[in-house]
């Protein structure tokens, strides 16, 4: 069952971590910590209380908070970009890889101007496709508060990158 959990949630958890971390290595560490906790806590999951994905992200959030506290990072730590070299192999589709690398660079630039909370909410909304009510449960906020933060974050992106992106 835990293998199934890993297969189903790896990419989602990795991205959740990647939205919060400065570098790939850090995101990988955090992903590993989150899955470690998920494996340990899996027998405590109660489907009557919440859906599996909400439960997973509640755990992920709690581990992330501990992770940053332990690493002496602040939640609003500036999201400075650490450029990783993108190796383009001839076997894998190089054009596709370059396109993905360019998109990731753009995404990093956008995330850089946002606070940790905004990044987290944007990830849960746009990448994880969770409803605002579910995000509110995970983040321990009210639904309207989530909506306001989401709106402000998008507005912030539009103000800064209005010439590149539209809503």
């Amino acid at each position: 069952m835990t293998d199934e959990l890993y297969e189903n949630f790896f990419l989602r958890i990795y991205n959740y971590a990647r939205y919060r971390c400065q570098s790939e290595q850090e995101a990988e560490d955090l992903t590993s910590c989150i899955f470690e906790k998920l494996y340990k806590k899996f027998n405590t999951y109660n489907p009557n209380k919440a859906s599996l994905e909400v439960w997973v992200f509640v755990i992920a959030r709690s581990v992330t908070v501990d992770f940053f506290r332990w690493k002496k990072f602040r939640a609003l730590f500036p999201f400075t970009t650490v450029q990783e070299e993108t190796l383009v192999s001839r076997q894998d589709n190089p054009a596709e890889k370059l396109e993905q690398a360019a998109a990731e660079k753009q995404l990093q630039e956008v995330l850089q101007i946002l606070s940790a909370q905004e990044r987290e909410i944007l990830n849960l909304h746009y990448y994880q496709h969770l409803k605002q009510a579910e995000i509110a449960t995970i983040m321990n906020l009210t639904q309207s508060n989530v909506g306001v933060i989401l709106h402000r974050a998008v507005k912030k992106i539009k103000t800064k990158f209005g010439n590149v992106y539209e809503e």
Partner: protein
Amino acid sequence: MKNNKNTISALLSRGFEPKNNAKVRIKTVLEQKIAAPKFNLRTALVLGSILLFVGLGIYTKNTETEYLGPNAAYSIVDNNYLTAQNFGESGPRGLETNPNYIHFR
């Protein structure tokens, strides 16, 4: 006219792609972590602190001087404190005439 702008939602929903076979690598690390005996730094620190405080407590208990109250007097001759109880309710005041005792107020 064609709009060349990307949408914010498209950008944000695209996400990051794990590189260098991260999925397998993380799983291997995870399996090692679960298999390895767990050393919990936090538990070690808490236990260490408790032991330190208990040790300090025992050490202080063994070395501290008992407070005998405001009427206690120190005997130079006996090199010891004399308590009020030793000399009745009036305290060591009666000793003032005795040059062997220094009376602290």
